[in-house]
């Protein structure tokens, strides 16, 4: 099969992931978008591994490392999300502005609830 097929799949998944990260306001859904992007990268790694047939097997090994790091990443991120839920009672990323610029003080106090 042409090499660009799996690469196309990877690109599409990546852009869908980008959309998910930008458009979602629930933190867990944002993380799902990140997972999609990481998987898109893995598809590319594996496709190139099959194409290059290097003895080093860099593609598959890196895909493995990416999966492991992604697992660690999402676990830590969810720990943060749960902490946010415990302190704020919600996990909407666009309402978490304590670290943002205090441009709209009125809205901020409302958002802090």
């Amino acid at each position, binding site marked *: 099969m042409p090499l660009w097929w799996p690469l196309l799949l990877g690109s599409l998944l990546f852009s869908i992931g980008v959309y998910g990260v930008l458009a979602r306001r629930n933190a867990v859904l944002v993380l799902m978008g990140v997972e999609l992007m990481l998987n898109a990268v893995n598809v590319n790694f594996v496709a190139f591994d099959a194409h290059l047939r290097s003895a080093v097997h860099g593609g598959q090994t890196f895909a*493995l490392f990416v*999966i*492991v790091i992604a*697992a*660690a990443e*999402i*676990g*830590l991120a*969810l*720990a943060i999300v*749960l902490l946010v839920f*415990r302190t704020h009672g919600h996990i909407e990323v666009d309402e978490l502005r304590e670290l943002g610029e205090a441009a709209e003080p009125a809205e901020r106090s409302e958002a802090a609830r």
Partner: protein
Amino acid sequence: MSDGYLAGYLPLAVILAVGVLLVVAMFAGNRMLRPAHATHEKLLPYECGVDPVGEGWAQTHVRYYVYAYLYVVFAVDAVFLFPWATVFAGLGWVSVGEMAVFIGFIAVGLLYAWRKGVLTWT
């Protein structure tokens, strides 16, 4: 790619299909035989006989989560144990040492969790 590789997964595809068919067949039979008299009370969530209070969600303690996370960290190290298991006999003590360092680091994490009292139920 060796010839038998994907052919070896043919039964897997077949068994998935058969499994789905099995479930579909079960429910087709069920559909033909079962009555359907849904009443209001039948469709209420079960709460020991009284009318349900509030919605189907209740706050749960976050302490469950740390266990889940410990699992994920260890599961990823198990991922490396399996390919290692197939080759380490040929690589000898050096390889055992490498794996020991790897698991040792994570075991330190478990020890830390233990010392911090995360593993004791509060």
